[in-house]
């Protein structure tokens, strides 16, 4: 199973502990986004328990991009994970829609309120998410909602860091091992600006248009009203700081309805809107799963 000789023995020991933990549970429901963490967790769960005792659940809403949804389905197919898709309605919650600094708490409350009863109805012993040990220092109000609903975080409990999860994912040949983090689309909208389906759609369309230019690394289009602020990975930034290239980027983003387009000179930063708002550590909450 693990063929990468370069893998740190400590990481492998943590993985063994994770597999033991999952086996001891007997059955689990995995909150599944198809991201690096939840895909690795689900793959381990399928190995430890077999596919008949694991269920991955994808929460669908306007804040989940089509690209993320497709990626999640493909990751599930790759690891043989049975999947259930549930529509979530966090946008109908005015506490979420108003986009406070703890917006993720309301999103995760909606998610787990729907997922935990599924686990109970199907006799699954535990509900787990992909929170890892590297998330501990970040500003993550969604974690409180998970705790309140009895959701467990075995990756974090095993002490597995993001880097270790990527290495272990690579050893397992998971397609997600090098995947950029992909938090929900609402993370592109500054706190205090309402999260609406229209704004989420604009962000999604703009990011798709930028991807179509060949940008493959970390990317965020931040919604600042009429201005779209584009963050690119540092290694891709310099080549777009050119009038002709920036004109192409600008034209692409404008197709999503933004009047003005500005390229961030600092480049991609996870949780940059937290930084702009002066909230917590510079981190971004993922799709939660």
């Amino acid at each position, binding site marked *: 199973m693990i063929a990468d000789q370069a893998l740190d023995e400590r990481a492998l020991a943590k993985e063994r502990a994770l597999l033991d933990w999952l086996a001891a549970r007997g059955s689990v429901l995995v909150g599944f986004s198809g991201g690096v963490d939840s895909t690795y967790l689900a793959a381990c769960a399928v190995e430890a328990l077999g596919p008949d005792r694991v269920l991955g659940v994808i929460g669908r809403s306007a804040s989940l991009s089509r690209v993320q949804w497709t990626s999640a389905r493909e990751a599930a197919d790759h690891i043989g994970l049975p999947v259930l898709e549930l529509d979530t309605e966090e946008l109908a919650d005015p506490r979420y829609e108003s986009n406070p600094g703890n917006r993720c708490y309301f999103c995760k409350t909606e998610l787990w309120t729907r997922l935990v009863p599924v686990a109970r109805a199907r006799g699954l012993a535990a509900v787990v998410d992909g929170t890892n040990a590297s998330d501990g220092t970040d500003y993550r109000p969604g974690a409180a909602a998970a705790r309140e609903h009895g959701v467990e975080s075995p990756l974090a409990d095993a002490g597995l860091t993001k880097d270790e999860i990527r290495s272990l994912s690579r050893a397992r040949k998971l397609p997600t091992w090098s995947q950029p983090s992909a938090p929900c689309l609402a993370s592109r909208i500054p706190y205090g600006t309402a999260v609406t389906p229209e704004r989420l759609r604009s962000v999604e369309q703009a990011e798709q248009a930028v991807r179509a230019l060949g940008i493959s690394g970390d990317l965020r289009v931040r919604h*600042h009203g009429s201005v779209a*602020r584009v963050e690119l990975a540092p290694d891709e930034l310099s080549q777009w*700081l050119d*009038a002709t290239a920036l004109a*192409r980027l600008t034209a692409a983003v404008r197709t999503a309805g933004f009047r003005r387009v*500005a*390229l961030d*000179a600092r480049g991609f930063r996870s949780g940059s809107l937290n*930084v*702009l708002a002066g909230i917590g550590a510079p981190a971004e909450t993922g799709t939660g799963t």
Partner: protein
Amino acid sequence: MSAAGLQSALEALQLRGDVVAHGPVAILVTGHPEQLAEPALREAALHAASVHGFRTLAVELPSDASGAHVPGP
């Protein structure tokens, strides 16, 4: 936050363009974004933006910029 102060600071770095504030974001409107392609200079510009109260600095082409026929810096 001071867009005028930042503009002066950027001019001292030989960076030309018009600085406009958009909330906590400073936007340098210039037909020559390549001015910021050099990482050390970019860091200096970001530092200046921070000193003048902005959380970040972004670059925007003038609205009439075609990418080829824009005023020089």
